[in-house]
């Protein structure tokens, strides 16, 4: 995505082929070795019938036809898309906003910087449990406030839409810190010169942000959104703990669907669901990467 800053071709001596490979090789090797076997194995599983009794013959596209022919997968894909789009947008806005706030010269800035990171440091399943306590409006910490507004008896997690909103809020509580810290580091590495020049020209703070900060932060922004998107597609702890995917199938994400299929050791179908998700995520992220890259190229 960040290809707007073209790698400097020939900027350095061309005898660097060896060091070029040296830089990339360890990472390629490690990821390749650890992913090659699982990838082959899961492809094999996706075209097989594989259950508790072990391998039960090849079914080729049978698993895919079974999964895609059932409304369940489509329902969960829709729900997952809602989580991804709403959750990641909200987290980006909050995270970027807070990062801007924390680059200002404010008292206790360093305290806030660490405090705001804490939600990210809790293991996801524990965050989900903490959120379940907080969202319990009868015996949770917010009970008195909800009581005042008479909202205690609203079936918060018993209503599909409300439950989705709470799940997105819980996810946002946990992952806004990630965007915050990456954006903060990005802001802190921005060069000073463009600002100085613009201030001399009498630019307002808004103009500084819109014409300098925001465009310069676009590469980091697009990366951080991409990473969050890839992760958000795999959301599972929050729905499983808060609602188990219910009411009905209203809050069930595709990964939760895969997870519960895996729990039955129906490995063929799990792999098929995994590849369907892989296809969807690749489609969405490629669309996103291409759109954003054009936007970055046009904007600069």
């Amino acid at each position, binding site marked *: 995505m960040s290809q707007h800053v073209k790698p400097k071709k020939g900027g350095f001596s061309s005898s660097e082929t060896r060091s070029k490979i040296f830089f990339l090789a360890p990472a390629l090797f490690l990821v390749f070795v650890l992913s090659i076997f699982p990838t082959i194995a899961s492809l094999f599983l996706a075209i097989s019938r594989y259950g*508790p*009794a072990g391998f039960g013959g090849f079914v080729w596209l049978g698993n895919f036809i079974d999964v895609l022919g059932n409304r369940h997968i489509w329902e969960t894909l829709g729900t997952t898309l809602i989580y991804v789009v709403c959750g990641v947008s909200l987290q980006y806005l909050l995270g970027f906003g807070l990062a801007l706030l924390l680059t200002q010269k404010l008292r206790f800035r360093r305290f806030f910087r660490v405090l705001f990171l804490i939600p990210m440091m809790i293991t996801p399943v524990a965050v989900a449990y903490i959120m379940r306590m907080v969202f319990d409006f009868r015996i949770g910490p917010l009970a008195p406030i909800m009581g005042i507004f008479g909202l*205690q008896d609203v*079936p918060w997690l*018993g209503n599909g839409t409300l439950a989705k909103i709470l799940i997105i809020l819980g996810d946002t509580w946990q992952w806004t810190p990630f965007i915050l810290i990456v954006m903060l580091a990005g802001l802190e590495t921005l060069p000073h010169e463009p600002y100085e020049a613009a201030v001399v020209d009498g630019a307002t703070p808004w103009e500084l942000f819109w014409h300098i900060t925001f465009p310069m932060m676009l590469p980091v922004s697009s990366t951080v959104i991409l990473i969050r998107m890839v992760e958000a597609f795999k959301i599972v702890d929050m729905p499983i703990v808060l609602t188990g*995917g219910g*009411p009905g*199938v209203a809050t069930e994400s595709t990964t939760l669907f895969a997870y519960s299929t895996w729990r*039955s050791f129906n490995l063929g179908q799990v792999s098929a669901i995994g590849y369907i998700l892989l296809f969807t995520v690749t489609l969405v992220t490629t669309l996103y990467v291409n759109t954003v890259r054009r936007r970055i190229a046009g904007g600069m």
Partner: protein
Amino acid sequence: MNKRKLLVGSLMGVALLAAVGLLAAASGQSSLKYAGRTMTIVTFDGPQIGEPLKRHAPEFEKLTGAKINVVLTTFSDLFPRILTDFTSGTNTFDAGVFDPQWLGDYVSGGYLEPLDSYIAKTPSMKWNEIMPFFREFSATYAGKTYMVPLDGDFQMVYYRRDLWANKQFKADFAAKYGYALVPPKTWGQYNDMAEFFNGKTVDGVKMYGAVEAQKRNAQSFWLLGSRAGGYMQYKGTTQGMFFNSDTMKPLINAAGFVRALTEWKNIQKFGPPNMINFDTGDVRSAFVGGQAALAIDWGDIGSLSTDKKTSAIQGKLGAVILPGSKEIWDRSANKWITKNAVNYAPYAAFGGWSGAVNSKSKNKDIAFDYLAFLTQPENSDEDVTLGITGFNPYRQSHFNNDSIWIKSGMTKEDASNYLGAIKSSLKSKNLVLDIRLPGTDRYQKLLDEGIARALSGEETPQVALDGVSAAWDKLTDELGRKKQLTIYRASLKLKSLEGN
């Protein structure tokens, strides 16, 4: 020189001492049967099941020399975790403590060791004192014994004895419904009582009528079975209620199940506003916390109610066999029939945590001996009464002896009431057996989804269960109808059909 000599001398002395010590230690150990060996046992995490397994390990080591390594996994990951070990041929687990419903998948794969000969050789485990249902149905599969029961599981109705004894409530109830307030005998009465108590204030707490686990991907499968038993099964355990035992056609969309699901959805009006999101944990905390008049659960509420740190209802616990019905669905004639007596069909949901031995383990002897050690009355008598364990009563010594319960903090009334409900359920000849087929987990998951769609109002109970029935049929065909039918019949102790 002298110094040096001294040093060498003392070093030698130390070495000698160490050698003697080692020898002594070695010879001391070798007198124990399993000295120097380690047995790995896998089970469900959390204090409930893992705790007793870990707690008894040092005593067992002292007796036999075997080191017990307990591997813990969350309940939801236990089934695939064990299977991964078995199917990949790794076999690091010598034994496991798990749900007997999984026997279908584990025994078909040839992963478990038949235990009959071991049991015959181990009188100390007092096998015959284990309640017959667990010995004969739960622990066996296709005629052989594969498991050692460590826990007794079936669902009951809990009620608050103090509310049912209250004169004002008794009078009000009789005036409103025209019959006396006694523990519910039928689902109709259960519904009336939930309605009656919902919203009443007791000890400053606003009561819910009933709490039941309706959450998705939790325990709803078993709750529906508990509510349907009385409508579906009336000819004894061998009748079964999930499939037609001649054709393997699902009975899950029969009128009895549809009625149970419809009533279950209606109970939402008399429960907490979030009840559709309650799992057993929420049910237990609400009931033991003193916030509900009625609850359906396994035996756990009984042992939880004794713990002062947990319970607001010490001395107020009432338990009774699952309600039944006078109207029963006749599946062959496809119509409702009416009986004079209430038909009870308590549901042995889940079947109780039980231990099994990996057939490819090198430590089968230790594995079995440890399981036998856990179940013998000296150990299990205490375990079943402790709030921290998830073990519920399953052998005679647990019932015949109130004192172990009173020692654990239960009042005498609570104990006799609780054990009475358990006994009346276990004595029933009409206990409903849970699904125990290859693919059990997949059947359950499909039903769970259907129940959730009905409870959320997305579909009517009939439409939702018709969907489940179709999905079950498809699954049965995938797994082999003939094979499934044979296993289903064997699990009910029916003769195999001719021609099969």
